């Protein structure tokens, strides 16, 4: 027996949203907002999210609280007709809380959802289709492509980028200079050579450090280098996806380099136990040459290190190029059952406006629009400028199985990394990785 309780909610809510939008369109037409020559769809796009009233319940992840905390206060102070009520969701339970609320018919109006979890909701019709509103944004082309990709089903958008949590390559210019290296590596080979040179300085210096027991951190920092080389680990549309592991040349090359770094003692011994809780702290001590890490580490480094000892660069590709980054962070999504979708979209547009985006770096994250990068931004936030510059080259693995493939304990990615890097069996790891990635994808697709 097929139970379709869930399916009725999105349609009902879409109808409600459409009716609300139509009403707003009519109201706006009366105030002259919509032009007489505009098509009905265009009128809706122009009036939806304009001068909305009432309350918008906004759920944001606790991990990103600095931005919503600050900006919600500012919004409420400047928008007497529309009030945001902010609720912070626990970091690991944001998806399950949202799913429970949607099932119970108590969905919030707006959610800042971890972008890798967006396809799981959009595929089931649980989110409002915002395609025409996204298309109407004048800065659409500068929005993070990876974030937008995860909010896309076919050619339809079910969300819009909200904030970027990006991966970069941190390096120590002081150690680089001592080792005779001119700048951050742009290829895998250069990264390996640089690691050797820095380690050979002695004095307990290490060429590179990585979070070797944190499968999520490893995916965050290693996958961009594979994307920068033109490959992904998962290919194909949702429902018909394939693993691209055993014939993935950049993946093989990267795992081989990491093994060489590990076997050659170019990385701290403690890396094998680094589960992410103190990730990046070793770099702050000044004796690690490179750290593929999170841009957010900058807060700690600015406090604890001389500026001559840290700088960031894009994560390199196998053979050069502009590099890449993991388009981590959140998308804005409006649940299909939201009671005030127009208000939610007004909030979204306000958050994405330049004046708010320019506040993101001071609040710990990167803007989601690449056109925010200007010379004044570069001068004010030089480290974030690197991340923001790489935003347009960023990417993601577009799959419903990301957590199972990469983040879960004993995930295919975790096993493959351990076997290749610590045991040195790169070919065997790729071979078994192909099978386990494929079977995981098949279990999700079925």
């Amino acid at each position, binding site marked *: 027996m097929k139970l379709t309780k*869930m399916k009725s909610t999105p349609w009902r809510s879409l109808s409600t949203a459409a009716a609300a939008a139509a009403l707003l369109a009519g109201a706006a037409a009366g105030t002259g907002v919509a032009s007489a020559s505009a098509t009905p769809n265009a009128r809706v796009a122009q009036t939806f999210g304009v001068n909305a009233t009432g309350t918008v319940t906004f759920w944001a992840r606790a991990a990103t609280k600095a931005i919503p905390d600050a900006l919600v206060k500012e919004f409420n102070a400047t928008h007497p007709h529309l009030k945001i009520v902010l609720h912070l969701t626990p970091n690991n339970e944001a998806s399950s809380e949202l799913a429970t609320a949607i099932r119970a018919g108590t969905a919030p109006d707006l959610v800042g959802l971890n972008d890798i979890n967006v396809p*799981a909701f959009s595929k089931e019709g649980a989110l409002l289709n915002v395609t025409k509103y996204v298309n109407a944004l004048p800065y659409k082309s500068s929005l993070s492509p990876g974030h937008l990709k995860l909010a896309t089903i076919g050619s339809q958008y079910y969300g819009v980028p909200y904030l970027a949590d990006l991966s970069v390559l941190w390096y120590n210019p002081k150690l680089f200079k001592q080792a005779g290296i001119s700048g951050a590596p742009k290829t895998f080979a250069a990264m390996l050579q640089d690691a050797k040179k820095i380690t050979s300085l002695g004095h307990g210096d290490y060429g590179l450090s990585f979070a070797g*027991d944190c499968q999520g951190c490893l995916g965050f920092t290693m996958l961009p280098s594979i994307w920068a080389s033109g490959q992904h680990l998962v290919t194909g549309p949702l429902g018909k996806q394939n693993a691209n592991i055993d014939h993935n040349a950049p993946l093989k090359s990267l795992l081989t380099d990491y093994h060489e770094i590990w076997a050659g003692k170019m990385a701290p*011994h403690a890396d*094998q136990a680094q589960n992410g809780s103190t990730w990046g702290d070793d770099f702050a001590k000044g004796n690690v040459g490179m750290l593929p890490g999170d841009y957010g580490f900058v807060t700690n480094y600015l406090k604890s290190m001389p500026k001559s000892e840290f700088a960031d660069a894009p994560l390199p590709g196998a053979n050069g190029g502009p590099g890449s980054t993991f388009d981590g962070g959140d998308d804005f999504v409006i649940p299909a059952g939201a009671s005030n979708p127009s208000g939610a979209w007004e909030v979204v547009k306000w958050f994405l406006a330049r004046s708010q985006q320019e506040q993101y770096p001071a609040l710990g994250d990167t803007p989601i629009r690449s056109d925010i990068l200007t010379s004044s931004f570069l001068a004010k936030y030089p480290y974030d400028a690197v991340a923001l510059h790489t935003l347009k080259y960023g990417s993601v693995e577009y799959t419903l199985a990301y*957590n*199972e493939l990469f983040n879960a*304990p*004993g995930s295919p990615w975790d096993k493959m990394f351990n076997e290749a890097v610590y045991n040195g069996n790169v070919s065997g790891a790729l071979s078994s990785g192909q099978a386990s990635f494929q079977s995981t994808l098949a279990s999700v697709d079925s």
Partner: protein
Amino acid sequence: MEGAALGDGRDVPVPGAAASRRRGSRSRRERLEARAGLALVSPAIAMVAVFILFPLGFCVYISLTNWPLIGPYHFVGLANYTALPHDSVFVQSILFTLEYTAIVTIPILVFGYLMAVFVRSNRPGASIFRTCMFLPYIVGLTTLSFLAEVELQPGYGTANVILSKLHLASINTIWVQNANLALAAICVLVVWLASGFTMMLLLAGMQGVPEQLYESADVDGASWWEKERLVTIPLLRRSIALSLIISVVGSILAFNQFYIITDGGPGTSTVSLVMEIYETFNTAMHVGAASAMAVVLIVVVGLITFVQFRVLRSDDA
């Protein structure tokens, strides 16, 4: 006083009638008392029904579906249950949880008992020791797990520093990358924490043992060990049973320490049963399968507790 009314206004007792009316009166009182009792316990019954029985029934219902985190679902019968024996991580998590339970249960009881013996007297300083030994339990497993995670770090963790100075381990020992080392470290942590709680349970039982029994044993020339074996332990049977049941159930439900310290690694070698349920629900988003695992867990805990009750119950129970 019940009786027949006389013309002069006095009451004359009529035994038969009075007894009958007393019986009737007592019945009414009993009925009233029964209703009052029912009314008094009805909030508790309602709470149990709403917060335990209904969620339990709903969990069983979900376990019979392919319920995802979001989206439509349909009945799959017992498919979630029949798939469990073929889920290698689930089977491994059960075996690992039982192994962990078997390792920590007896040390918790033994150390808890010895600590209770040590602090049960009213000698000066006993209360300080009692507080110190109970303190880890107050601090809590989550906090201690985070502390342990730091202190087990290779290179600078206190555990490695001390053990390396004693020439018992390298300062670079990576505890969490070896399943046996990780399990050993977590077992030490849990025994340290849980022994304090067992100590308090047994201490309460010890304080209920009549002092005269020890005096009689002294008169008979019993040694310390004979007094413990022949007086204390038999009279602590119920307290020991309670502490064992709490300890075993707590071990089977272990989650925090593994989630924080090892995250189930290396690989999936330290994934506990509850952690596997959590990952199946929260990471894989297979709510139906996770519910089936939870039902199995409930049955396992129920069976073990039942067996413990049968084995450890007092003869006078």
